[in-house]
């Protein structure tokens, strides 16, 4: 599915060069649910953006389904089947939820088709379809709409950058349920989630631990979980909610 060969990324800040990603080699197979965890500043979000084409790597190669996509634009990668959900969903004045879902689907989606995607993320289409994707929506609502836009696309690789960031506890539980359903769903999609939430890590086929720009551990959830439980790589959103 996706192969990362010796991917590196460095950024200059105040005359100093800092290496964010240091020569990562990674093979992401078909039809897997993978969670990438690790400390803040470890390079997780940058790696996700490198995959989507938003950030250009300073070195290395990306091979997607046998094609070298290293120099491919964001648009072409999207067309090739890569989906990316933003950590902080973007707001648009004037564009409605239906407009966004139609752009995502690449066709004139009917209201009832759009309703299927919205109900999958726990939103009632009747209340949301005509709403503008603007500041009137809460953080949790925006996150769910963001996920619905990925579902509306026919992607073979969906990358979610910290889907739980910035949402309230109530929305968090709903969000986990969405990913649990996505996990159970019988489709051929590979899902890569950047997160250090224990409940997402538990349902992963595979966990990748990224620290200081490198892969420090990788394996099935039952192998990796005992090693990282209780650390900042595997956090519970709220002990009382367990």
């Amino acid at each position, binding site marked *: 599915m996706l192969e990362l060969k010796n991917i590196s990324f460095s950024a200059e800040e105040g005359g100093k060069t800092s290496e964010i990603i240091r020569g990562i080699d990674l093979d992401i197979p078909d039809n897997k649910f993978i969670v990438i965890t690790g400390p803040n500043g470890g390079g997780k979000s940058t790696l996700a953006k490198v995959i*989507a084409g*938003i950030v250009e790597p300073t070195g290395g190669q990306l091979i997607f389904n046998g094609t070298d996509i290293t120099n491919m*634009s*964001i*648009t072409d990668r*999207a*067309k090739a089947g890569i*989906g*990316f959900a*933003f950590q902080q*969903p*973007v707001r*648009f*004045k*004037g*564009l*409605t939820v239906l*407009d*966004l879902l139609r*752009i*995502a689907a*690449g066709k004139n989606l009917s209201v009832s088709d759009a309703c299927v995607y919205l109900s999958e993320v726990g939103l009632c289409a009747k209340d949301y379809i005509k709403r503008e994707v603007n500041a009137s929506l809460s953080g949790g609502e925006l996150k769910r709409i963001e996920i619905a*836009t990925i579902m509306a*696309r026919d992607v073979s690789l969906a990358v979610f950058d910290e889907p739980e960031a910035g949402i309230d506890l109530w929305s968090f539980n709903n969000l986990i349920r969405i990913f649990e359903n996505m996990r159970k769903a019988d489709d051929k999609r590979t899902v890569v989630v950047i997160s250090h939430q224990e409940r997402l890590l538990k349902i992963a086929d595979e966990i990748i631990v990224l620290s200081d720009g490198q892969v420090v551990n990788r394996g099935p959830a039952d192998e990796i979980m005992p090693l990282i439980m209780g650390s900042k790589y595997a956090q519970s959103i709220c002990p009382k909610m367990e």
Partner: protein
Amino acid sequence: MKIDEVQKRLFQEVADLHEIPEGAYNLRANGESVGRNTTANIDIQSKTDVSGIDIRIKAGTKNESIHIPVVLSESGLKETVYNDFYVGEDCDVLIVAGCGIDNCGNQDSQHDGIHRFFVGKNSRVRYVEKHYGSGDGKGKRLLNPVTEVYMDENSVVDMEMVQIKGVDSTERTTVAELKEGAKLNVRERLMTHGDQKAYSIYRVSLNGDGSSADVVSRSVARDTSYQKLDLCVNGNAACSGHTECDSIIMDNGKILAVPSLEANSVDAALVHEAAIGKIAGEQLIKLMTLGLTEAEAEEQIINGFLK
């Protein structure tokens, strides 16, 4: 009725007219009336002193519409037209106006429409005005509409003012005076390109207790065009007013936004907002991750913004 293909296209652009409209109408092309219809409740008479028409709507008229579009397809034509609307009490009507200019010649074409509305007690008016220009001649397409609205007690006026394409220079002036309980909602959409200039001026006076106004302008300035948005609400009673200019700037466009408020009563509650900015990079990136090219993403963002 004699109208040619260019005029037909202009009528479609400004009034969505594909055929003769239902209800009352007055169609004006190149300075002459080319079609008119009155109904039992709506009368249209030509003015005798100046160019223009008087439209009288009987009290109690509901669910009727009036179309009064104007088109100019002759280069060098300049006209000033005075249209007065007398809306009786307890009415509920739709008024569609607008002007389309096609100028293929080298002389400037200009239409200055002065519209006055006298809206009776408890009446509701929805007013839609679209301006459009086309043609590749060197002659400019100029439109300077003046809209005056005098609203009696508890009347409601919803105005939709749209100028999206092709007008070289425009100075739009809208003046409104509201009595007790009257309510004015304005939604303006402006887009300028090339080296066009657009001035949009609103003066809204909230004179009666319980009156309110919501004046919102959304605009896009592309290329080297210039816009001045000057939206002022005066609160002279226990009233509420809101004015907002929200603009996207592109290329070398320039925008001056001047939302302003004047409170002359301690019970006036007035708010203004203004924002100017380019299209956010992350908005483009988001739409590109959904498979659009950068140009397609830009178009979707602008279409949505001006919708």
